[in-house]
């Protein structure tokens, strides 16, 4: 069943078009990889879908509600509750410990401090990094930071997780370990994942691969290696 629906998305940065009338549906629990060359509009598409950016034209609908017309505060609330966002560099808050970083979205939602910490510890444990609870990001490796970032993105049990090159700063082995965790945990709670990447091996984890070129979808498929994807999962 379609949860997130984008129709005719257009977005430009000054005279440079990034999206040129793109249409896309994301179903519940579906993992979609968005690939394509640099500058083809992958990240812009992700930002429009997540409500971070407003498209210049077209619409984004979440469970029947058009969200691109919502105020920024309303879209922020949506990202805090229904969506999760993950970036290439984790972007953890340097001054907070691992557990505090993971607990942050829950605290924002009004969860008590103790309950938020308990949930954060649980998620760190599920990602195999429980020992990072009281460690600052500056003392973590890139892979550890990214695991904390995944925990932070999933701690609110979002319906859609938007991941922008989540393994782009990691080595191949660490990146694949991370993806394995991400896909398993998302699958456990039926969270849809929109995964922007330019690495075919990463795209192979997806149910569906969308290849973009010059701001539009060039072609869609089960990824260039659906059997490999099945094998990796």
């Amino acid at each position, binding site marked *: 069943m379609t949860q997130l629906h984008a129709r005719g998305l257009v977005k430009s940065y000054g005279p440079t078009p990034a999206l040129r009338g793109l249409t896309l549906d994301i179903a519940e629990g579906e993992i979609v990889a968005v690939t394509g060359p640099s500058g083809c509009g992958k990240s812009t598409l992700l930002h429009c879908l997540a409500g971070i*950016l407003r498209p210049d034209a077209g619409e984004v609908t979440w469970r029947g509600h058009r969200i691109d017309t919502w105020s920024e505060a309303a879209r922020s609330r949506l990202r805090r509750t229904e969506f999760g966002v993950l970036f290439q560099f984790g972007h953890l*808050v340097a001054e907070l410990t691992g557990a505090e970083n993971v607990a942050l979205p829950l605290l924002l939602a009004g969860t008590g401090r103790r309950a938020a910490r308990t949930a954060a510890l649980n998620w760190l444990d599920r990602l195999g990094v429980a020992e990072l609870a009281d460690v600052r990001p500056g003392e973590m490796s890139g892979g550890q930071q990214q695991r904390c970032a995944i925990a932070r*993105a999933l701690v609110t049990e979002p319906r859609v997780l938007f991941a922008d090159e989540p393994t782009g700063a990691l080595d191949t082995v660490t990146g694949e370990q991370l993806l394995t965790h991400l896909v398993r945990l998302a699958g456990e709670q039926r969270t849809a994942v929109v995964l922007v990447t330019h690495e075919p091996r990463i795209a192979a984890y997806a149910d569906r691969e969308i290849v973009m070129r010059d701001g539009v979808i060039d072609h869609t498929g089960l990824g260039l290696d659906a059997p490999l994807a099945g094998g990796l999962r």
Partner: protein
Amino acid sequence: MSPGTLARLAVAGNRTDLARMVLTALSAALATLVVLAALTVLAIEKPPGPEGTQSEQYTNALLREPGLRGGTAFALLLLTIPVLALAGQCARLGAPARDRRLAALRLAGATPGQVTRLAALETGLASLLGALAGLAGYLVGRTLLHRPDGDGRLALPTDVLPAVPALAVVVLALPAIAALATAVMLRGVTTTPLGVVRRAGRTGAPRPWPALLVGLGVLAAALFEPVRESLGPALDAWLALVVLVVAISAVLGVVLGTGTISYLVGRLLHRYASSPARLLAARRLTDDPWAGSRTFAALLAALVFGAGAAAFRAWFQLRDQLEREQNQVAGFADFQPDSFYLRTMDLVDLAVALAVTVAAAGLIVMVVEGISTRRRAYAALVATGVPRTTIGTSILWQVLAPVVPAVLSALGAGYVIGRMLMGDIASGGRTEEVCRASAELCQDPVARQNYVEFVQVDQVVSAPGVPLGQLALLGGGAVVAVLATVGVGLLFLRSNTAVEELRAT
């Protein structure tokens, strides 16, 4: 690298670099103006004649009395403290972009020494431009303000010009000092082709030893009057030096103590933080408690001096009041005490207000720079749904939580030291000869004898009360200035949390 290339690379950069250079130049221009004003006061020639002869060409007693000019010049020079602090804070503006630019230069083959020279030259050139602008402003200003009144007297010493070599030294020394200071500050920084590495600063919890400095200042101030009485006026010059050391000790204690205050406030806030904003603020305060010392140094210094001045004012006001009352008892109902010192305190208050304003300008730079440095983390938080108001509130907590106790400690230290230096007021204890007749009779030596009586004016020892109103105005004004600057700084939060920030590595 040829000097031309060095100069061209030193002034290359983006809009933030340009803003940093403009602010640095502005600070240098202000500092030049203040130093030239002090030099001008010192350049006024002592009038010929016996001791106590005044320079009658000026309306202001601070300029007329040769004995007061040293103090006036010193007070003006003190104004350079917040101005130089502003320059120091400007140097941090756009630091991440500058770091990337310097790293790129290293990658292109520049040596570490060349990179240091580039950074120092940037500050030096901006300061030189500012100093020249300051000199031009001074020369134009002294022409425009040269307006003698009906008696041919001047409000400012616009008839005096310091020696040309002195002017040249000021204009050249300020940029040289600024460039040198930049080079010294870069000693703890290594610019590699892959980025800039800063040597770790002080780590661990700050100790409460800065309180000792304040205590030392208070103790020295308490001993000032007894020592002065026992040694007599011969050592007054040395005692003035002691007063200066006491003031510097107190300022240092308060400024460094802000690190301790920040750390303790951060721990308290962390223990009881129930919101993400307070949690973020608490962690930042305990992570880098010295940030408070750096940020508020100029403001706190101005408040220590301001509170000391408030104590002095209270003392002079009470002394005038006692003199007025005792003269009324003696029959001199029309007696009006000379309000010279109170007028002087008005000038000191004006200087403190100026210092607070300049310090507040430096705060804006610091707040904006803090936001700019963390912009990617902030942009990521906003992208994940964290409201900007949460980030703004955390910045507000981070600034205001330590500033309120720091302001109170600055006011307390300044007031207590000022109060101790001035001591209590002993007035009266004398016999007044009063002539109770018309002026004509009183001026006649024979007739006067019939109307003269002697009135005993008892000695009264009074302690001036705490000038709560003025202290509250000073502290409240400082907190409001901080609030306003944070408000202005937060205007930059939106642009610094734009999603584009996430695209840069």
